[in-house]
């Protein structure tokens, strides 16, 4: 099944904490998509979370300790670090150097950050993935996570991959650039505001008539599908882009 090419440098995979807790299948699909392009995937077992929850909640020391753990774990090889989340990739690329700006470890951290690449950017720009859609015609809509859009800058790559799936009709959300209201601990510190935001997002999703809402970020998906389930909206499901592509190209 694997066609590992000796000419291609292996890549590291950072699965994210949500993949460990709730979205293991999506992350596994991401690993399969990378392997499909001939790269060997190396998964360090001691990895955990990017540290963003504490970083955004007023606990920078805890965030820094967790971030440093990831930097150390991925230090054995100089491989690119592929991350199936724009938000975690953004944290590791953009915010790690800020967390360590006054530390003697800054340059080690910077070297780590430079190796981080979001999954769809890796598949599109580095691996030049080409997909053949074997699935039945389907209407899908796409939710851009804020940090995928504004930190990892990977939305064009995600959409470029989706556009190769010939039987998928992508219907854009009316307010694609607006936050779904997740925001990590924001969703539990300001539940009413977050609730108002996700309720508007779900209304937008439903009005597209799509049967699936895709995203590159499990945090947003957990929020959107959680609200849909609560509201008994059953004709739209939520799925991570990696799992969706993997299913489509395998029929």
């Amino acid at each position, binding site marked *: 099944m694997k066609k590992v090419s000796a000419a291609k440098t292996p890549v590291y995979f950072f699965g994210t904490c949500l993949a460990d807790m709730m979205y293991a299948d999506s992350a*596994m699909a991401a690993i399969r998509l990378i392997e499909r392009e001939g790269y060997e995937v190396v998964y360090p077992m001691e990895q955990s979370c990017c540290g963003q929850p504490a970083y955004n909640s007023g606990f920078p020391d805890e965030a820094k300790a967790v971030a440093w753990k990831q930097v150390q774990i991925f230090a054995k090889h100089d491989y690119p670090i592929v991350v199936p989340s724009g938000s975690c990739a953004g944290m590791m690329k953009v915010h790690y150097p800020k967390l360590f700006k006054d530390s003697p470890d800054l340059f080690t951290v910077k070297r780590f950050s430079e190796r981080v690449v979001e999954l769809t950017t890796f598949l599109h720009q580095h691996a030049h993935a080409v997909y053949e859609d074997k699935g039945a015609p389907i209407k899908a809509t796409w939710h851009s996570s804020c940090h995928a859009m504004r930190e990892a800058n990977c939305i064009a790559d995600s959409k470029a991959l989706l556009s190769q799936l010939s039987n998928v009709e992508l219907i854009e959300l009316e307010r694609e650039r607006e936050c779904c209201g997740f925001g990590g601990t924001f969703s539990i510190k300001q539940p009413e505001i977050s609730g108002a935001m*996700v309720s508007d997002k779900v209304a937008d999703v439903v009005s597209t008539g799509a049967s699936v809402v895709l995203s590159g970020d499990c945090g947003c998906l957990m929020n959107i599908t959680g609200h849909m389930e609560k509201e008994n909206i059953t004709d739209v499901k939520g799925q991570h882009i990696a799992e969706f592509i993997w299913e489509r190209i395998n029929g």
Partner: protein
Amino acid sequence: MASNEKFNFAQSVAEALADSQLRANFRFATDTLIQRRGTVFASPEETNFLRDVGSSMKKDVLANLPDLLERFEAKCIKNGIVVHWAETAKDANEIILSILNEKSAKKVVKGKSMASEEIHLNAYLEEHDKEVVETDFGEFIIQLCNEPPSHIIVPAVHKNRKQIAEVLAEHVEGMEYTEDVDIMLENVRNTLREHFKTADAGISGVNFGIVETGSLCLVENEGNGRMCTTVPPLHIALMGIEKLIENVEDIPAIYRLLCGSATGQRITTYFNMISGPRKKDERDGPKEVHLVLLDNGRSRIMNDPQLGDVLKCIRCGTCLNHCPVFTRIGGHAYGSTYPGPIGEILVPQLEGLNPKGAIATASSLCDACSEACPVRIPIPEIIRRMRDESYGHGDPNSVAGYGYKKNCVESMVWRGWKWSQTSPFMNKVMLKGLALFGKWIPVVGPLKSWMSVRSKPTFGKNSLKDLVKKEGVRHE
């Protein structure tokens, strides 16, 4: 304006969210403002270049502020402007009152000024028997209702046309209910005209103070600013000390950034450059011009390299329009002069973290504000800093109320989280625990909040770590 003692953010948020008319009004307004901005800043390359220019211009000003202020003061004095320095809001109010008293001025017309809102000038002057008339249309409306502004640029934006028609019919003498905007405007214009004619003094804000020439720039659309600063015999301008621009040639860039960001205009209808009182051979203009330079905590803010960025703000309000939280709760819920993202980073610094630090929790850190900010203030980063400071993780000397939210429970939760994310053994225990017992976690605290609008999360039987091993992915 909600006073700090009465400030209850959770309650104001709940009330705002429950008001469907309010939410519709804000959604309509912010959509319109975002769309208009988009037409003026259609080219991302040009816009980003301009934002770089604006950002470095303001950065330079802040880096040299003490020197620039002295040069500016000297130029203003040379132009015949009387300059006053106000260290606190109280000082500013007292200075303005004493100028008015000295001239026996009773009635004041006012142009829109956020600095005057910041120091609660109207309430202070009214307490001292002055008649204060707001002359910006939006400010005029909310003054009639005795409400504070709900937006930095469009103060009555929380009201729709019908609600404004009702306010005018109720409060303006001789005015009947009409939704015809032209008739409403004409009536208000006639009412204001009388006030301009009879006012003893005009008070305005300042958008840019030009150091090179000692000029006060006032950006506006209604002409009321020009009337306030030219018709009455006395003009008092109130300006935050950070509002300086070094040279006249810097103005086109920063003015374009302000207009485009604030209202989606290329230029405003009026751009006033006030360079002193009426000269001997001139027939109009005020006989005296006073400038009150307001510090009110700005010098302290400036001393912190990260927090100081908040002073780059040109008060365009575009971060409010782009904020998904502001759009839903509106300006009043923040209980502060400056609402929205800029308020979240400025107000806790001006008024202290306790209780205003609470407003910094009202952000999903989506970065929409910093993406739009014309002077590239890293708003989300400073929001994070406010949160750090609230829990006592930062600089004990920079913001009042440092560590006010510090508590054992949260500290322990995050310490436990850190343990579970740095110790592979604890991580395994946590993941196994969630897989086996996750569905029995009691619905209290954070989970209860989560489940108020979402279903209970389902934890997977396998972690990715389990799958990686099972499926033979190389792991080490």
